[in-house]
Every structure is written in C-alpha cells, then in structure tokens.
C-alpha cells in the first residue's frame, strides 16, 4: 500500500509553465481524480508521476521513496492509457505478460498471475486473440488487465473511459470502483468528465492552467466550491452566476433586490462586488402568490426527463432552476421564486475565491 506525495512540482514547455508548484498528498488506498478541461495539465501531471515526462523542479514520493529521478518501470506503478496502447502484434496473453517477462518474473508466476487477472476481468475466452480482433470494451479490459498483473500498489489511469460508448462507460466505471474496493490499491485517475470524478473519487483535484484549484472530496467540491472556476466546472446542469454587491450588514444588492445573507456560512468578511452562485436545485417556485418571494421573468424550459430545467431572468441576468416537470409546465410569463441562500455560494468578483 503506497501513498503519493508531490512537492512543489514545476514543469515548463519552453516559455509555457504547464505545471505550477503542484503540491498533492495522496493517502494509501485513495482513489484520486485529476479533473479539469483539456490543456489544464492533468495528463502532464500524471505522466510526470509515472516518470514519462521530465520535470523541471520538485519532488515525487511514492510509498515513501523519492522516485523523482527513478525510471518509470522502477516506480512501482501501473498505468492504463486513453488509447489502451495494447501491443498490436501480440496476443492478449502476451500483452498481459510482456511486462513480467521483461522483468524476468518466473514463468510459472507469470501464468498464475495472468490467469488470475483474466478471470477477474472475464477476458479468459479471448486470451489468444490479437487486440485488433477485440471490441473497444474488450480492449479496455485487457488494458486494465495489463495494469493489474503488475500487482503494483499504485495504478494510474489516463482518461481510460473516453473511447467507450456511453453505456459501456457507465458499466466500466462501476467496475473500476468495485476493483478499487477489492484491490485496495492507490488509484490516480485523469478525466475531464465531472460525473466520473464525482462517482469514483475519494478526493478530486480540480486543475486549471497548471494549478490545483481545489483538492477535496466530491461532496465538498459540489457543495462548497472554493473558486468560481470549480463552481462552474463541477455539476451538470451547471451553477448559475449572478453579479451582486454585498453590503456591510450582510445584505446582497441584486438589481434592486435586497437579499438577506445572514444564513450564509461566511468564511471571510468582505463588502463590495461579489458573485452569487446558485445550483439549479437551490431555487424553488413559490406557488402561493401571497407568500413572499422574488418575481422573475420566465425565459424558456428544457425538459430533461426526471426534471425540467427552467431558465429565468432577473435584472438582466439569466439563471436556471431544476423543477418538477409537472410544475414547470404550468409556469407563466413570470414566476415567484425563492433562493436557498444558506446553500448558495458567494465569490469575491475580484479574486474569484469563495467567501
């Protein structure tokens, strides 16, 4: 069982600072997801941990050993690639055993491990086929199998599900979670899919522009995003943002409206320009017009099956609410809504950080 410890990691691509002072502590047995849009440096970070990309400064520890200058094969890691990178001229069995053969593991042990992994992943029936004769899902399994036969205590995944169709992706996602539970290995997983991050991770590191924006469990990421970027990136349908001004008596001025923010769990005191972040489920309709609420204009609705996403406008700013489809159909040109401000998020407009 190995943890990973990354300290002050920097990498430059010419003038481009692709990894900026990354610090990341990963406990043994965790399932960490590196989440971010393309070009944020998440794959580069994974490759740096694997030793496949040289770094400019900083240190990487795996299982308490400094592996910063150690060859990839000696870092005690296994890796699954986005394109699977199966060796096309070798049979599935050879693909699985190649690494062990290279490392001069005894033949009997190799066969034993390959058979065990093949059984675990249910790929026994096509051990003698070449990768070209396999479907995408089967190749994916072989790629995972190749990582598992190494019996490493750290497994790295580089967007392993992005080449699968939606149904298979959901299935394999569940299977990965089960594998993690049964193997107990430390897993580090790169994706741009926030659903994968939410479902799989024990902790998520959201990255942007070569920096870690927030490193927290999925629930915290969703409920208390640390920055405006995290708030917008995590969650689907995404959070709505409304520009407002916070006064010294914790009142939010929003286009002629005054909202009482005393129930909001402030972490810092501030006044001035802020951004109010509301998830679609933080907004509810006040059906009884005698009750107090905020009058808004209805723009359009997007039925999504279980819920309907309704778009409203207030003081020239758009926001969306997740509503019961039956209720959504009855909406008129205007509606009276209520914000669950105690669950909302407030960000400083200048620093884009949570307050």
């Amino acid at each position, binding site marked *: 069982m190995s943890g990973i410890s990354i300290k002050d990691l920097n990498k430059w691509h010419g003038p481009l600072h692709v990894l900026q002072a990354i610090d990341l502590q990963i406990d043994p047995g965790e399932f960490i997801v590196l989440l971010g849009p393309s070009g944020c440096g998440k794959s580069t970070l994974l490759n740096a941990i694997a030793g496949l990309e040289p770094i400019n400064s900083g240190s990487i520890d795996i299982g308490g050993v400094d592996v910063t200058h150690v060859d990839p094969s000696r870092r005690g890691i296994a890796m699954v690639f986005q394109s699977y*990178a*199966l*060796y*096309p001229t070798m049979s599935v069995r050879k693909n699985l055993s*190649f690494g062990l053969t*290279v490392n001069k593991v005894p033949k009997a042990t190799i066969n034993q491990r390959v058979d065990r992994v093949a059984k675990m992943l249910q790929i026994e029936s096509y051990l003698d086929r070449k990768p070209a004769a396999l479907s995408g899902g089967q*190749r994916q399994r072989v790629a995972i199998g*190749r990582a598992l036969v190494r019996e490493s205590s750290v497994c790295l995944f580089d967007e392993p599900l992005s080449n699968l169709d939606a149904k298979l992706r959901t299935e394999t996602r569940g299977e990965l979670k089960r594998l993690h539970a049964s193997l107990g290995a430390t897993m580090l997983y790169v994706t741009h899919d926030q659903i994968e991050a939410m479902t799989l991770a024990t902790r998520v590191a959201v990255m942007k522009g070569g920096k870690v924006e927030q490193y927290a469990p999925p629930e915290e990421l969703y409920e208390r995003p640390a920055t405006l970027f995290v708030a917008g990136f995590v969650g689907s349908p995404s959070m709505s943002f409304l520009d407002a001004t916070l006064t010294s008596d914790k009142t939010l001025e929003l286009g002629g409206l005054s909202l009482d923010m005393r129930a909001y769990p402030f972490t810092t005191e501030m006044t001035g320009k802020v951004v109010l972040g509301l998830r679609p489920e933080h907004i509810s309709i006040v059906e009884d017009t005698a009750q107090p609420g905020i009058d808004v204009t209805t723009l359009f609705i997007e039925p999504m099956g279980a819920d309907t996403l309704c778009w409203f406008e207030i003081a020239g700013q758009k926001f969306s609410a997740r509503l019961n489809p039956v209720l959504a159909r009855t909406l008129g040109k205007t509606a009276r809504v209520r914000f669950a401000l105690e669950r909302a998020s407030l960000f400083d407009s200048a620093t884009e950080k949570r307050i």
Partner: protein
Amino acid sequence: MATFDRSAGSPFVYKLAIYLVLILVAAAFLLPMFVMVVTALKPMDEIRSGSIFSFPVDPSLDHFGKAWLSACSGLSCSGLSEGFWNSIKIVVPATAFSVLAGAVTGYALAMWPFRGAKALMTALMIVAFIPYQVILYPIVRIFSTIGLYNSLPGIILIHVIFGLPVMTMIFKNYYIGLPQELIKAARIDGAGFTRIFVSIILPMSPGILAVTTMMQFTAIWNDYLLGLIFAGRDNLPMTVQLSNIVHVSMGEIEYNVNMAATLLTALPPLLLYFLSGRYFVQGITAGAVKG
C-alpha cells in the same frame, strides 16, 4: 450545353478511351522490352537482316549462357556470373545494413524525442538531396586515407551511408504515425530502447521493411557510378561488368549476347518485385490498434 459526366456519356466510348491510353503507355514501355527479348533469342544472321521487331525464326537460349559464362569484358572472358556474385556480395549486406540502420534511426527520431532532433532531421533532409557527384572526390580521399577505398567493405559502407538519409526519413515518417502511448506503456512495463524496438516496433513494420528493402535493393543493384569508383577491380558489380561487355569493341558486336546480358542484369530486382509485391499493399495498412 454538354458537361462531362461519366453516367451521361456512352460508357463504351469512355472505357475505350481509357483502355486506348493505357495500351499506348504500356506499349511505350513494352516495345523496347520486346525488342530486347527477341533480339536476345535470335542468332546473329537474323539480327543482321535489320528487322528488329520480327519474331526469331530459330530461337536459342545459348546467348544467355554465353552472356553468363563466357562473354568478354576487357581481358577476362568469364561472363557476367562474376559480376552477379560481386553484386550479390555488395547488395545483400548493404541493403540489410541500410534498412536496419534506417529503421533504428527513424525509430529513435520518431519516438524518443531529444534535443536537436528537429535540426538533425532538417540536416538529413538536405543531405538526402545533395548530388553524389559533389562529394565523390572528398569521399574517395577519405576512404583511401582510412584504407577502405577499392574494397568490398568500402563499397558496402558507401551504399549504407548514401542510403541512410532517405531510409531514416521513410522510417521516421512511418513510426511517427504509431501512437506514442505504445512506447509509454512499454516503458512502464520495464522495456528499454532496444527491447521496445525488437519486441514491439519491429513486429509492426513488415510492410515498411518490405518497401524499403525493395527500394534499397533496386537502387544498389542498379548503381553504376559508386560501384565503378569505390568497389575496386575485384568487386566490380554486375552493372559495371555489363557496361564493359557491351562496350568492348573487338570484332563483331554480338547484339544477342549484349541483350541477354542486359536482361540477366535487370532480372534480380524484377524477381524481387514479383516475389514480394503483395507486401506493398499488405502490411502497411496493418497499423496500430485504436479504440
């Protein structure tokens, strides 16, 4: 107004036009070939009659035997066979080394990026297009200084050197199309530069190996200039010997023997194409696996 449309016009006329052009082009190449073959089969008195397109009345394969065993070039009258074996001794190792070296260097340039790789590629590009003649004399001087001039290893080395830039570029362009993640996966698996090349990259290259082997074999077999200059008197390749046989002017010019000798010299690359032509189509298409 009529526009050119395959479906609108008469398909018969369209096809006729195509076949006509193809037949004309084929004839342009095959006619000299035909003349060579029939001349090689004719006895001299038939040739003297001057009708070069006529079929041989009394065909004979003897001229091939003479060309192979006893045609005279200069003082020796041992036929082309000596030149053939000289050519084999030059072509086989030179082809093998240049293709293999090109594969290794192309693989290194494509998959193991290092500082200055781009500059090196550009240099190779430029070098590949420098005409031989420009650098022949300095190379002769260098080779004679290090004692390789006029020797079998010398001429082999020359062919490897001249073949390397193009071979490297071909292999580099082929390997650059393979997924870089293959190398990463193999490195995680603990394989090094050589192991990855031998176990993973080489098995993926039969198509490109066949193509480059044919290219090099043909080019080196057909070479005249380098063989003449560097091989030395004992190792003159078949092409040089052919030229000597054809140009020898003693008594009657035996056109039939000359034609037979020329056909024999052209045969090996032709055979190679016939035997391995299908690899051109095959193999290349069997690229990497993607999901």
